[in-house]
């Protein structure tokens, strides 16, 4: 059993008073106090086409078990982005399987259910043919 700690801090001055969110978690197995102990390792890939690419296949996890996915656009552009989607091939902006967009520097950490279906593959689609780099890591049980 491994111990994986993840801490988020969000600070904002949107309101007239400071907003500070600080939360830590231990990534545990499904309905368990035992930690996740498998990982894909860190993946780093350069993209230079706008076609959608599968970065995580549903078979990488076990259906019904706990998984976490960390993804980050390592660039700095606030114009170019990656769509991230749970979809069967295309990460379109108007698909209800699209999660969101990662501009340069943006990161996300989400739970992921590896339901045994292509609808739970994770795809990304760059917004440009200019080179962009994505890094991602899956934590699973």
């Amino acid at each position, binding site marked *: 059993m491994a111990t994986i700690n993840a801490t988020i801090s*969000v600070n904002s001055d*949107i309101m007239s008073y400071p907003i500070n969110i600080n939360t830590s978690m231990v990534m545990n197995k499904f309905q368990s106090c035992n930690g*996740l102990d498998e990982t894909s390792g860190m993946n780093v890939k350069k993209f230079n086409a706008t076609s959608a690419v599968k970065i995580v296949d549903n078979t990488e996890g076990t259906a019904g078990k706990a998984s976490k996915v960390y993804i980050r656009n390592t660039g700095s552009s606030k114009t170019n982005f990656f*769509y991230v989607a749970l979809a069967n091939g295309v990460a379109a902006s108007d698909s209800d399987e699209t999660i969101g967009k990662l501009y340069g520097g943006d990161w996300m950490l989400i*739970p992921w259910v590896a339901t045994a279906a292509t609808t739970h593959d994770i795809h990304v689609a760059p917004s440009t043919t200019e080179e962009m780099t994505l890094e991602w890591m899956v934590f699973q049980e």
Partner: protein
Amino acid sequence: MATTTATVSINSSDLIPGQPLSINASHTLTKSGLTEGLEIIDMGRGVLTEASAADALAEALGTADTSNWIYLCNKSTNDLHYIKVGIHDTLIGHLGAGEWLWMPWNMGDNVAEINIEAEGVTGSSITYEYAIFQESKTLPAKT
């Protein structure tokens, strides 16, 4: 212009033998294609009951395909409790007791709501906290 930053650190000394894991990342939330910061926020705390169906944490009320961010935390301390998190009909994942998520939400269309549902122990309740940082939000029409 508002400035919102989100920082993450992921650490493990024993996940990969001989290779301590240390991921650190930080970003500033900006509007789509701009360097201007997000200026709309909705945050709060609520309770979900296990027997009920999925509820919309946030409706896709605003301009489609924009830059919005979701923070959600399952405040339960019961390991059996988890929250199903989805976008419309698509399940994203299970948020276990004490766990949080941070994800973009582009509101791809007007039915792309963020929904959550308590699961795990029949009849029990799960407390959650959330914050939604948005580029665009249209208030619901008066009834």
